[in-house]
Each structure stands twice: as C-alpha cells, then as structure tokens.
C-alpha cells in the first residue's frame, strides 16, 4: 500500500468527517445512510469487482446480517453491539455455506444459483413470518439501539458510527487488494485458468473472497438494522441484489472508492430527478445509459483509466 493510496482514502474519510459538521440536516442523514449502503457495495465489489464473481444474490448476505442483528435484539433483547456481531456471524456463515455450494458452478450458472439461493432466503423470511414478521418486517426496539451511553437513533451518533463502519470497510478493502491475496483475486478475475496453472488453489481463494464479501455485506445489513431501526424482507429481495451490482458498476467495479461514489451518485440522481419530474426513473435511466456508454468502467474506473493509472 503506497503513501498515495493512504492519503487518498484517508482523505475521503477526513472529508466525510468534516461533512459531519457542515452538511445540512437532510444531507447529513442521507450521507449516513449512503455510507452504510456503500459498505454493502464494498462487500459486493470484493466478489464482483476484484474476483469476477457476478453474484445476483448478495441481498441474502445483507439480509442475513440485518435479520441476525434485528431478531437478536427483537426476540432476545440483545444490545446493539453483540447483536451486530451476531448479524455479522450469520452473514459469514451463510456466505460460507452458499460459497461451498454455489462455487461449484461458474459464470452464468453462478449468477443463477446465487439468484436462486437469495430467492430461497427471501422466501424463508416470509415462511417463518411468525418469527420474522414476514414482509411487514419489524421495528428494532429503541432500547436495543444503543452502544453504551450512545443512542444510535441520534443523528450525530448515527453518522459517526456509519463513518466508523465505512472507514473500516474501506481500509480493509484497500488493504486486501494491495495484499498478494488481493492480487491473486484479480488474477482469478482476469484469467482463472492461468492462475490455476501458476499453482494457486483457485477454489479456496474464490471461497475466501465470497466469504469476505458476504461478511462485509452482512455487516452493512446488521448496521442498517441498528442505525435505522427497521428490519424488512424487502432488503433481502432481488432488487437489493441488483442495487449492489448497479452501485458498483456506476462507481467503478474493481476500484476501492467506486462503491461509495456509485452509491452516492445513484442516490442523488434519483433524489434530484424527483424534484424535476414525476417520470424521474426515466431521467435516471437515461443518465445510467449515458454513463454506461461513455464511461463503461464507472466513474472511478474512468478516473483511473484517464488520470490515475495505479488508483486501487
């Protein structure tokens, strides 16, 4: 990891910290939410962007974290921090099990298998509705939404906790891709057969990548439940798997900063378009098509291609 890498990424964290003091209330809340969702995208980016595993089922990992945390708090009155760890553990376990099965397939089959697993996870949430409250979801008890004296429903606390989580995920992602392990993941993405010929155990590394990816995605889901107080099946639906893919593609797959930029861009694109017209999805759609045509590597990907060749 170069000094330049560190300065760039720590610089973003510093800017986000400064924004905590400067942003108007509405945008302050939105940035907190975007940071949590960007953690989900960072997790997805490790599997898709760096390892080339195009999953259409990552919402199940986000949902595992969310329900692991939420159900622990709701049914067993477990406080936020241990409940969050339970959520992260659920996502890690699920990604290990799904990885062991789904990684027996490749490419299109992998997409379909992950999609099916995610759909099964979604339907399990609905099936056990007496425990999960089905598609209505449930509100995380306010007493459980605190870490020590800090109330997670407080705007300021929420922002700082989201920033800590985001910073952790960002730096782990940066560290990971600059490690030999991370470079092997890129090699898998570029040419798995060649990596195997070079002697790498590609299956084990793909599994490790998927578990790391799923665990980070689950950490975001668990944090969302604690910070925003709601757990619902829609977060485990196929739509949220597509969101992660979209955010990463927009920001730049295989870039460390891309997931955050993509998530932020997508949010404000929709938010601003709603102020222009009721047909805001049309504006969003056109903008996405243009971006795909003229910046196919995503926003940060284009910066790397044109300006900064070794941007991680």
């Amino acid at each position, binding site marked *: 990891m170069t000094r330049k890498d560190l300065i760039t990424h720590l610089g973003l964290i510093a800017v986000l910290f400064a924004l*905590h*003091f*400067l942003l*108007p*209330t*509405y945008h302050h*809340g*939105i940035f907190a*939410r975007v940071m949590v969702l960007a953690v989900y995208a960072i997790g997805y980016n490790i599997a898709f962007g760096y390892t080339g595993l195009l999953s259409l089922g990552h919402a199940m990992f986000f949902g595992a974290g969310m329900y692991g945390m939420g159900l622990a708090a*709701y049914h067993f009155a477990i406080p936020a921090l241990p409940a969050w760890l339970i959520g992260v553990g659920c996502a890690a376990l699920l990604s290990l099990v799904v990885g062991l099965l789904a990684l027996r397939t490749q490419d299109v089959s992998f997409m379909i298998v992950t999609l099916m697993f995610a759909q099964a996870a979604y*339907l399990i949430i*609905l099936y056990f*509705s007496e425990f999960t*409250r*089905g*598609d*209505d*979801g*449930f*509100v*995380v*008890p*306010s*007493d459980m939404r*605190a870490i020590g*004296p*800090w*109330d997670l*429903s*407080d*705007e*300021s*606390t929420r922002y*700082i*906790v989201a920033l800590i989580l985001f910073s952790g995920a960002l730096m782990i992602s940066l560290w990971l891709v600059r490690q030999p392990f991370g470079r092997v993941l890129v090699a898998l993405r570029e040419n798995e057969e060649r990596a195997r010929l070079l002697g790498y155990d590609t299956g084990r590394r793909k599994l490790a990548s998927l578990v790391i990816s799923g665990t980070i995605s689950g950490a975001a889901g668990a944090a969302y439940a604690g910070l*925003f*107080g*709601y757990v*619902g*099946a*829609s*977060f485990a639906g196929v739509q949220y798997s597509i969101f992660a893919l979209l955010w990463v593609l927009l920001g730049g797959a295989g870039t460390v900063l891309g997931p955050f930029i993509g998530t932020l861009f997508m949010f404000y694109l929709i*938010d601003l378009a*709603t102020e222009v017209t*009721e047909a*805001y*999805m049309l504006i969003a759609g056109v903008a996405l098509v243009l971006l795909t045509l003229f910046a196919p590597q995503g926003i940060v990907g284009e910066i790397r291609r044109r300006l900064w060749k070794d941007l991680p």
Partner: protein
Amino acid sequence: MTETSSKTKTGLISPTRRGALKTLAAGAGAAATMPLWARYSSAQSSAPIKIGFGKHATGIGAAYGRWYERTSVAALAKINAEGGINGRPVELVTEDDGTDPRRAAEVLEKFASQSECDVAFGTLFSHVVVGAAPRAAELKLPYFVVSEGHHVASGMLNRWTLQPGITDVKSQISAMAPFLTDVLGKKVTMIFPDYAFGYDHRDNLAPAIEAAGGEVVAKIAIPPTETSFTKYFPKIPRDTEVIYHVMIGPGVLTFVKEMGEFFGPSRPELFGFIDSLEATDLSSPGLEFLEGTYFWEGMPRYLQDDTPDYVKAYRDAVGLDANGASTADASDVSTSAHMFGCWETLHIIKAGMEASGYQSTADRQKLIEAVEAMTMFEAGPDHPQGTKMFNGKTHQVFGPQYISKVEGGKLSVVKTVPYEETLYDDEVDYTSMSF
C-alpha cells in the same frame, strides 16, 4: 415491542456539530437587518402549512398512490376553500416513496428537514409504514398513515404514528364474521396470499368466526409468486359452505376465472375483501363468476340509491362517476374502499391543528396530543365514510363496514355494520409513552 423508555442516551460529537451550526447561524443572524427579520417573522404566521404526502407513485402500490393523491388534492381544495387551517393555506408536498420502506424513511427525512413539512401523511402499504415509522419518531414528525394494517393498534409503532382516518383489518374482520356465519354458512374455508396481508386475515378470521358460532375448516395459503391456482381448489373441503378469499395482485383475475371453472354452477357461497379488486373493473372478462357473491367494502364503490348528499359531494370533489371510476376516464377505476381515508385524515389534521392552536413545527407534540384527545367523528362532509370512534390510546379509528353483493356486475350494499360492532380490546397505550 414498545418505545417507552426515557431517553438518557446521548449523541457522539453532537455538541461540536451543533456548535458549528450555531456559529454559522449566528453569523447569518448578525448580517441580517432588523426590518428583514421582522418581515420574515410576520410572513411566517401566514405561510402555508405543508403536509408531506408519501405517495406510492411507483412500485406495487401505484394504483393506490394515484387515487390517494387525487383524494388528498380534492380534500385540500375543500379545506383551503373553507379558509385553510388556522387561517393559513394548506399545501401538499408530494414525494414518491416507491412503495419501498427505505425510500419511505428517506422521504420522511426530506419532509422534516428539507421541505420543512409540518406533518407527514398518506402511506398505505404496511411494510412501508413499519419501515418509515421509526424515522418519524426520531424526527418527531407527526405521521398520519392511511394503511388499514393492524400494526398501529398492535403497539408495534410509536407515539408519533397515528391512523385516525381508516379502520384496521382486525376490526374489519370482526365486523364481517357474524354476517358470514348467520347468512352465508358456518363452515368457512379461507384462501389467502402467503404473506403479511394474508396473515392478518389468517390470524384474525378463525377466532372471529368461532366467536360467531362458525368454524374455519381449512386455511389455504397461496404463495405470492403463483400464477395458476387450479391445484389449490381440490384442497377445499367438500363440506365447505363459504369460501373467504383475500387474494390480491395481478393474479386475481386468473384466480377468479379458474375458481369459476372449477366449481361451475354449483359453488359454495363466496365472500371476499374488495382489496382483491380495488382499481379493477368488475365487468372485466373472467369476473362474471363473481355475480351473486359478497364483498367487504371500506366505502361503497358504486353510487347507492340512499347515498347521502355529503357522500355525493365527496365523490364529485374527487371526480368519481356512479360506477366509482374517474369522471375523466371510465376505465380508470378508483380504490374507493381505502382512499376516503386520505380525505378524512386531512380533515382530522385540520381539526387537530385548530384544537391545539398549531402555529409552527414547535407545536407538533401539541398536535399529537390534540388528536389523541379526539373521540368521535360524526358522519358528514369531513367524514363521508360514516360515524367513527377514535381510540387515542391505540391511535386507531373504528368505523362502519360495508357488505356488498355483486348484482348486475355492480356492488350493492346489503348490510352496514356500525362501528360499535367492530371494537376489540386495547393492545397498547401510546399515550403512556414519551415523545
């Protein structure tokens, strides 16, 4: 799960942030001149009251969103024509929530801190309400939902979320059960969608039917992804006297058509919730089988012979023809059984603001307390659906329920159940919770 605990927790680094904002505010204040300040202060009192409307403009609830908006616009036109609220005009600030709980929470944030709305209102789909309500409490934004879910009265939500304009599923079912057992038959098979809306019916129908002297002989859950229903009909017990169905979504027409083909002319009695066919023309091909069957309606879709003048005025204001479709487009059928809740809720917001002397967002708590203190809403221009009783403790209203029969392809009201017969025991006391 309640939110009764007093808040002793604190925020991280909040004094510094607030300090920074205060410094900015102080700087701006120092630059301002006294006449400008005085003029702003004067303008504030006559500035419009802003009501944030979370509209299901896209997503699964879009048909409802369209009619909820039309009803809300019509209600505000009436309220403004009558002098507004506390002498101030009222304005609707509409945002699409995509029928999505995350977006709905963001929309509430936008209402509270960017659009500077006084209250938020309008949400229908229960998962959207449950997802957004915690945010309303955090923002201390009065959140008036028009959802009919039991989630408000069950105690799942919070003191800032109220449902004073539409009844909930539990009371609707308890009102229907005696009619089913007394008139249609005592052995009931229910067919319901296998998710939350269906579960409200599944969980509440059997006790209500048993209390009315009947029996639910089978409960058939149908997954929401199902597109053909023929394999479920053989599961209906032979001794079934009444089929109670609450299927909703795009598969409803197929469901009815296939049920008609299965039973032919010798069918049991059928009773359904009009939710199945909201915004759907009863003369659609395949629905002929429903002739002679019964439906619950929150408010009659078709103009009845004895419709009171204030209901006619409401229908005219919203733009409904005699068939409950848009006067501008006869194929655009309304969501009559639910959308009246928007009209009535807006009038309750008006009454609450006037009772509490509402002036600014600083009075939001007083508004909640004023609405909680309400008890009766008499039928009339403000409450065209009928006379209702509001329970301030549970934040839930109880009102009349209508049972209609399909005759000649139209729904005719055959029985009206008064609110007194729809009550059930309190499950929560929101007034004991802190703000």
